[in-house]
């Protein structure tokens, strides 16, 4: 009896390590499971466990405050510290939750789009990618972030290239080149910080940067870090790897990556910008965060306009992602509690929305064999449930009230309005970009519902294993649009704790 309690206790105490170790160990095991559906079932099981850990961690953080975990019992700043506060607990939840919802969906998509003899490798890469993203999020060590970034990037290249579409190879290569560039920049930035301070622990870094902050080295470190991270989360003008990467990869990969990968990079940006550099007075004159604003604005305008002119649904969604990343960057760039709340809550809301939209696109791809918009004529009649979910999630992308997208935009616009006349202009631009979203979503609606199907091959509704995750995310868009206590409250707490450390 007492041993059982003891075991339970130690399990709970070691959750931060398990969050990363479980998928990491699971990945090589996965490669041995060569029987049909085995790797998939195993990955699903691991995802469920990881999700449970993330939920438990979030609860612990919300009730007991920040968790600091010493890896291997080595006290920080010598050892690696896993440090979990509101913001990364929230991101852990998003990443593991999306993986759990996307895996049931992946079953049929992967069967169709990935050769049978590579399934075990595919799911192993999936788990490694999950491990990498969770690791980036949970660690409190700057160099450790780089390590996990490489793990997630390398497995992402594999995932993108795993499909049958040969264009996926060039897309993966393009991403590989840019991703490596970004990772190298981040490594240089971290290296410079290490030279100046002699520490890699993030909290320790923030403490020790003060005296040396007004040096070229630290400024260069900041520049390298920001540019490197911007490359990873496809902020305009470093966005061009993203449309191909999402469009040519297997549908399930597009769902998983669009909903998680960029969010994690945004988190890293938040971490460096506010926790590490936030306390530095010398950077106040630089308006460090403000530097993001022009790129953010360009991102959401260019992304939305480009989305209107796409001929392929997946590419359209990918360009729209570039625009949505712009919104997040805008919220972060404003640097106020409302702005940060908007940026963080949009990470969550956009994960739901874009996940649902890519799922719908993938379901259409499975049934029709293409996502060219002209081939989707009449899909509203042949695949009514998929198309309806697409339209409903599309409303969330536009930001129609009652959807979660509206909540993000509401905070974003309010945050912009606090900045006087420039703020009015910004708010106007955000609304203008929403109208552009109406246009590109409506193009699909018109083709899907008001054109007759081309005839020929019989198009079937997507299988239940795809519809259920799709509708779960779609209804999630509405649930979190009407019931904002969870998402907004957590985001606000996260924003305040980020800014609180800064002051």
């Amino acid at each position, binding site marked *: 009896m007492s041993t059982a309690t003891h075991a339970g206790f130690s399990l709970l105490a070691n959750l931060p390590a398990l969050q990363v170790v479980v998928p990491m160990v699971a990945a090589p095991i996965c490669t041995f499971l060569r029987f049909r559906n085995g790797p998939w079932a195993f990955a699903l099981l691991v995802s469920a466990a990881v999700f449970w850990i993330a939920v438990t961690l979030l609860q612990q953080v919300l009730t007991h405050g920040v968790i600091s975990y010493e890896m291997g019992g080595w006290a920080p700043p010598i050892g690696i510290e896993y440090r979990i506060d509101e913001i990364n607990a929230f991101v852990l939840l998003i990443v593991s939750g999306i993986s759990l919802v996307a895996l049931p969906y992946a079953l049929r998509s992967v069967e169709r789009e990935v050769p049978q003899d590579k399934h075990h490798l595919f799911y192993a890469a999936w788990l490694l990618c999950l491990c990498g993203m969770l690791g980036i999020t949970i660690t409190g060590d700057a160099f450790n972030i780089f390590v996990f970034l490489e793990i997630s990037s390398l497995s992402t290249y594999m995932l993108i290239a795993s499909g049958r579409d040969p264009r996926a190879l060039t897309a993966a290569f393009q991403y590989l080149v840019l991703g490596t560039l970004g990772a190298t920049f981040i490594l240089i930035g971290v290296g410079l910080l290490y030279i100046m301070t002699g520490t890699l622990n993030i909290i320790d870094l923030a403490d020790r940067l003060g005296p040396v902050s007004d040096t070229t080295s630290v400024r260069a470190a900041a520049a390298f870090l920001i540019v490197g991270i911007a490359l990873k989360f496809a902020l305009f003008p470093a966005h061009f790897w993203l449309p191909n990467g999402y469009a040519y990869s297997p549908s399930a990969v597009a769902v998983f990556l669009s909903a998680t990968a960029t969010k994690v990079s945004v988190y890293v940006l938040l971490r460096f910008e506010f926790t590490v550099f936030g306390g530095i007075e010398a950077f106040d004159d630089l308006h460090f965060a403000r530097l993001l604003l022009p790129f953010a604005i360009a991102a959401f305008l260019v992304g939305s306009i480009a989305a209107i002119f796409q001929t392929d649904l997946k590419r359209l969604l990918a360009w729209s992602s570039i625009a949505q990343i712009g919104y997040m960057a805008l919220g972060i760039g404003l640097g106020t509690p409302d702005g940060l709340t908007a940026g963080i809550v949009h990470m969550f809301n956009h994960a739901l929305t874009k996940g649902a939209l890519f799922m719908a696109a993938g379901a259409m791809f499975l049934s029709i064999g293409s996502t060219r918009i002209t081939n989707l004529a009449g899909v509203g009649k042949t695949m009514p449930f998929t198309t309806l979910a697409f339209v409903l999630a599309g409303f969330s992308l536009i930001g129609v009230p009652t959807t979660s997208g509206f909540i993000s935009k509401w905070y974003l616009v*309010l945050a912009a309005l606090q900045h006087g006349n420039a703020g009015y202009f910004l*708010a106007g631009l955000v609304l203008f970009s929403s109208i552009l979203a109406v246009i590109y979503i409506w193009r699909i609606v018109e083709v899907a519902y008001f054109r007759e199907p081309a005839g020929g091959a019989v198009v079937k509704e997507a299988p239940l294993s795809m519809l259920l995750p799709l509708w779960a995310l779609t209804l999630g868009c509405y649930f979190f649009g009407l*019931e904002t206590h969870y998402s907004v409250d957590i985001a606000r707490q996260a924003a305040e704790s980020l800014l609180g450390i800064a002051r």
Partner: protein
Amino acid sequence: MMSLETHIELALLIPLIGLIGIILTGRMPNVREGVTLVTATANAINVWAIFPAVQSGAQPSVTLFEMLPGLTVNFTIEPLGMMFAVIASTLWIVNSIYSIGYMRGNKEQNQTRFYACFALSISAAIGVAFAGNLLTLFIFYEILTLSTYPLVTHKGNEDAKRGGRTYLGILMATSIGLQLPAIIWTWHLTGTIDFVEGGTLLGKVQGVSAGLLLALYVYGIGKAALMPVHKWLPAAMVAPTPVSALLHAVAVVKAGVFSVIKIIVYVFGLELISTETATNWLVYAAAITLTLASLIAMNQDNLKRRLAYSTISQLSYVILGAALGTAMGVVGGGMHIAMHAAGKITLFFCAGAIYVALHKTEISDMKGIGRIMPVTTFCFMIGALSVIGIPPLGGSWSKFLLMVGAADAGFQFIIGVLIVSSLLNVAYLMPIPLRGFMLRPPGAGDGPIRRQEAPLACLIAICITASLTLVLFFIAGDIYDFLLPITIVGGG
């Protein structure tokens, strides 16, 4: 006895239940139309059940969701919204009868989609009517736009698609581009988006900003069709006539002007509108629209397009009434919603009847129409006289009140504008029945002329709405008493 709150929820739910019933019974047209009629009747009974309480001064309220503190989906019924809901739900019954005759008479395709979208539109219109804050109004306003789009493009040909694109483009762009920023601006200024007696903006905004905010609202509500955002209405005339009749003469356009009155009364407040000179531009804008639209109507040969421009002109009467900022103006404008609804739906019903029976759409082809379709043409004349404003028909009272309101506000020239506009109404509406009765149909020879009326269902509907214009003349006093409290702060 159900609580008023339940009635409010039912008012939104009944059309949706009907919608499901319509889809499920889609393969059996007779059952499907039965479902539509039962739903419409149940809906009207339910809406009327709220009426006595509102008349005695109650303002029942239901909050469905609270998204963020202060941001809710809330329904609160005040007299104006009550009246709009009563009009929309009652005329839905009549319009359903008419639709059955029209859609079958014309052998239209996709009838299930037609009736389903219709039910959804009515639910949205009632949501607009009962909205207790700007956000709720905005949500249902958008649902109304989207649910009527398939109705506008019903025919599915290139013309219909082009019309639909104009319709959707203008309505969505103005609402998101102008109305939503106005709502956010209001929130920014006052911290609330609720409709409050006496308004919330008094003392919070003044001068050019007040005029600009009003402009964002009025042009953001594209459904009110104030020039230059009126183009969508003629474009929407590609829709089947029952749609033009109930939606583009009653539910959709009235949702627009209703929203304008509601915002002026409950967000700006009459005190702000009447004392702030920077908002006076709206009086002139409305006056210009109502005159210009009448002039354009005279040059339209297509009957439905002529009626559409006439609607644009009549909508500006309502906007004008609200813009005057006087009690008489607002009550006159509000009453005009009811009066014009009855008159214009009759005119559209007649236009549709002529199309079903004779397949004629152009006015120049309608010589002698009165000899072929005497009942229809007679009812057209009644409707026209009501729209012009001749006693003993409903339209005369609202115009009278608007003139009184204009005099109260010190805009004497408006009386002149209204008189000129009435003359223009005579000039573009009356020739149709007059030539119809006086002239012989071309090519009919000297012999007796064979009568050829529209299907019975259409005729019944036409007669009901035509008599309604007469009834409204006699109950105008009751409508006046019912609406007056909205203009008195603390009196409602």
